[in-house]
């Protein structure tokens, strides 16, 4: 608006100066510069704004309009081998092996008729400052996509976590103390066999600080687990559980 007013004033100033002259000479003296000034003074400011916007949008259209620019291609998740360590905000996770077994007492998974137990042995080290309850995070941290979501009985297929050494179920993980755990799933007996490759997905939780909402500074929770790495494991079939090392775990 201010721009328009300035132009109007310029035109007003120009007009009285040329008033005493006769129309012919006035027309002679109207240089293109003056003409633009006068014309600009007569054009409403909104038109200028609209025109500028139109030009801008027109230029934008040349680069794909106002749609979101395509982001960078998501990087493919790393595929780890057994024994390699994946680190997220909560844990150092080293997945060691995958074992198929008829049943694994003490693991927290009780196979139904026609099911066996898939056990993944991993070492978890809590790298936070607080004790973490393993079972609160293991379900989302360790997933295997190819396993069916439902069991023969119609129940949801869920994983369990236990310590390998003394089969404590759902152990607390103390800061900086590495713990070997076994994560187990019930699987249909005919789904997997010895030598098959199974892809384990490791998901990372994100720390959410309640201080953002005016909570105390120490308060936080772990939210939004998202896939962060894969581990390809070759399945070892130990039949009925002759591997005595696994029996206790």
């Amino acid at each position: 608006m201010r721009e328009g007013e300035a132009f109007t004033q310029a035109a007003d100033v120009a007009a009285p100066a040329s008033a005493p002259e006769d129309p012919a000479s006035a027309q002679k003296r109207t240089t293109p510069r003056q003409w633009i000034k006068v014309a600009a003074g007569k054009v409403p400011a909104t038109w200028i704004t609209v025109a500028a916007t139109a030009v801008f949008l027109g230029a934008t259209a040349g680069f794909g309009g106002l749609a979101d620019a395509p982001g960078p291609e998501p990087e493919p998740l790393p595929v780890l081998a057994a024994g390699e360590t994946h680190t997220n905000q909560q844990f150092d996770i080293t997945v060691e092996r995958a074992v198929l077994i008829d049943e694994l007492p003490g693991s927290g998974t009780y196979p139904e008729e026609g099911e066996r137990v898939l056990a993944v042995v991993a070492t978890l080290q809590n790298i936070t400052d607080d004790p973490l309850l393993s079972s609160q995070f293991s379900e989302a941290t360790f997933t295997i996509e190819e396993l069916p979501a439902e069991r023969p009985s119609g129940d949801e297929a869920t994983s369990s976590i236990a310590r390998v050494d003394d089969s404590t179920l759902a152990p607390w993980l103390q800061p900086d103390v590495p713990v070997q755990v076994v994560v187990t799933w019930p699987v249909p007996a005919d789904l997997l066999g010895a030598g098959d490759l199974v892809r384990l997905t490791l998901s990372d939780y994100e720390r959410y600080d309640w201080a953002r909402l005016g909570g105390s500074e120490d308060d936080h929770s772990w939210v939004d687990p998202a896939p962060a790495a894969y581990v390809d494991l070759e399945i070892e079939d130990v039949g009925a559980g002759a591997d005595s090392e696994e029996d206790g775990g």
Partner: protein
Amino acid sequence: MSPLSATHLHSAGRWAIGVGLVAAAWGVMALTPDTDFPKQPFPVAATLGEPAEARNLRLTVLDVSGASELSDAHGWSGPGPWLLVEFEAEAVSEEATASLQRIELRIGDRTYRATDRPLFAAPRERLRIGLPATATAAFELPIDALEDSAQNRRAVVSFAYDDINRQLDSVVTHEVDLTQISFAAPAEIPDREWSR
């Protein structure tokens, strides 16, 4: 004094007041306790062998020791290092809620929970009024807890009832110098039986 210098003085005075107010605001910010302050629990320091009284809790730390490996009468054993805190506790006014849900060890910024393994060693029973019970809380420590460092010299064990709502509750604390404790020998944890 010329009017000009008076104006200068005037403006200098304004600046002084402005800067002074900013400094004062900084002082107030620095002195203000953090947002957690009004909700802090009340610590009750316990010395070895002396009973400490907190809300509905009378607790005596009897012994603090270390172990390289812990075992129990049921054949369980776990490699350490372990910190063992033997204590005697009783309720004072109410038994219904008198369950020690929160037994923690704080080393620097890190917090350790009394171990849940072996399950039968975790003291989870309710306390009784007038019947002191003895139990041992075991803490599984990281290897670096054995080093000589400032934070290891000032570890703190704390006992309280409510693990979730900690605000404004009282908590019995006992300071432990981990560098003065020997973690060389294995130990056996007594059964979880209370009152022996």
